[in-house]
């Protein structure tokens, strides 16, 4: 593999979180447990159980799975928000995570100020942001209201602005969550071209969605997840078929580890 190419490589990645709620922790609600609980082994929730995969340049990966299968957790691991509890995760390439397109927007600030705020949080310099403004405004069609606070915008206008800013920064690895299907029909059609261009300019796309049409359109490879394990890895069409079939429902994953034997890999 060429050394300058982007890749994501996961080897037996696990992710567990201690199962504790604020209520269970409260000294007031449970004073005895607070003392007897000291030094006790904590209950761990196993969110990702031994995932292994490799994405390389040109991969367009769709993450498929029911709620709680680990799609968002996996995206957050790839975005370096979370760190694996065990295993090895190696990521090479400028990563952009569009898990929530409206991230960090200040509703009291003007549209223009939000462009700067978002641009800076994407790691751009002020010159780079200024250079992009005409193109962002052109797409979002908000020139007339750009000096108004975005709290006065309709939700469609806010989404348009957020989307235009987010897609103006190019990245090698692109992480997308479900939000893309939000917005009115007009926006979805207009933004689709821009989104496709944005995806084309990236080397790796990882896209989590429940929408089969969207997945087929954007992705070439499908990773079907169930209870934190990869149960299918292959062509997107086959992956979606597998997800729809009874086989997916039939897979039973034992509560602790040992998921490897159940992993069905079709390359």
């Amino acid at each position, binding site marked *: 593999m060429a*050394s300058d190419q982007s890749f994501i490589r996961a080897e037996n990645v*696990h992710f567990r*979180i*201690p199962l504790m709620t*604020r209520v269970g922790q409260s000294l007031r609600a449970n004073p005895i447990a607070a003392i007897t609980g000291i030094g006790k082994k904590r209950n761990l929730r196993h969110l990702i159980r031994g995932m292994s995969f490799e994405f390389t340049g040109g991969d367009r990966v769709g993450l498929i799975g029911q709620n709680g299968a680990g799609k968002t957790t996996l995206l*957050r*691991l790839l*975005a*370096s*928000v*979370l*760190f*694996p*509890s*065990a*295993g*090895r*995760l*190696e*990521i*090479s*390439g*400028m*990563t952009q*995570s569009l*898990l*929530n397109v409206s*991230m*960090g927007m*200040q509703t*009291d*600030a003007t549209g223009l*100020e939000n462009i*700067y*705020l978002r*641009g*800076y*949080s994407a*790691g*751009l*310099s*002020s010159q780079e942001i200024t250079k992009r403004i005409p193109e962002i405004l052109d797409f979002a069609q908000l020139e007339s209201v750009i000096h108004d606070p975005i709290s006065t915008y309709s939700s469609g206008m806010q989404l348009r602005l957020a989307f235009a800013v987010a897609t103006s920064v190019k990245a090698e690895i692109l*992480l997308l969550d479900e939000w893309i299907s939000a917005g009115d029909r007009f926006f979805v059609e207009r933004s689709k071209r821009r989104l496709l261009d944005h995806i084309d300019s990236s080397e790796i796309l990882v896209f989590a969605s429940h929408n089969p049409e969207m997945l087929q359109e954007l992705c070439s490879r499908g990773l079907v997840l169930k209870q934190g394990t990869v149960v299918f890895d292959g062509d997107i069409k086959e992956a979606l078929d597998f997800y729809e079939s009874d086989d997916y429902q039939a897979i039973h994953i034992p509560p602790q580890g040992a998921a490897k034997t159940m992993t069905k890999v079709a390359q």
Partner: protein
Amino acid sequence: METVVESTAPRDAQRSGAALKKDAGSGGTLRDRSSKLVLFQDLLASLRAPGFWLYGAWIDTSLRFRSQALGAFWMVASTLVFVLMIGTLYSRVLRNSSEIYYAHIATGFVLWAFIQGSLQESTRIYFRNRSMIQNGYVKYVDYVLRMVGGNLINLAYTVLVAIGAVLITPVLVTSVDFVLLLTVPLFMLAVLGMCYSLSVVGARYPDIAQTSQTILRLFFFITPIIWMPTSSGRGAAIGAFMYANPFYYLVEIIRGPLVYSTIPWFEIGIVAAAIPVIWLVAALVYARAKPYVPLWI
């Protein structure tokens, strides 16, 4: 950018160092969760690319006062009212009629507001930015810098009251004031270091926000801000404990030269000695906690 996140299960003794070295050789950035110096690495990266936190600090301040007639002058106005009212009242209560008292209380109060604001907000800083953190903006250093930056802008306005008080009251403006070039950076370094420790501890233990609020309110009264340690009257009773109070040193290294034209070498020495300790603690807890912050909030 190249990122390697490597972890092994507790029973796996070996950490595959060979792979790490290979990646470092390809010229990428290596991020390993076990590095103890990750706070300084992150801080350096944030100082090199200050756009987000600088602009964020400015916009936070701007938004706070945007729709108000007095705007940013409110920061000056509220400080001025406090200093004039409390100054007049307490100079009677404490039987301290000296005019220097206004400069004393103005400087002390302005510095205290900065310390308290920064420390208090640190304890909740990652909760407040939870949605940005969960969605991938994990430069934790930036959130604290943005908040401290906002408080610095606040300080820049309110300090006008302190400067005004120094100029109006018969306080000597002498060459001793050049010591401020040393003590102001020391003050900032100490406060910033404490903010990083508190931000992590506050994220892990939500109760810290309430605890620190209680403690800081207490310290406002036992730190010589509205009373003067030198007064032989009622201030002397608390004055005995003054040297056990960390905030006394922080306030004194700036107020000493500015108001009293003295160089408080002892206090400067204590702060200078404390700064490495503060930053060492901050670096250790930050390095330990960094992978867990998204889980706690």
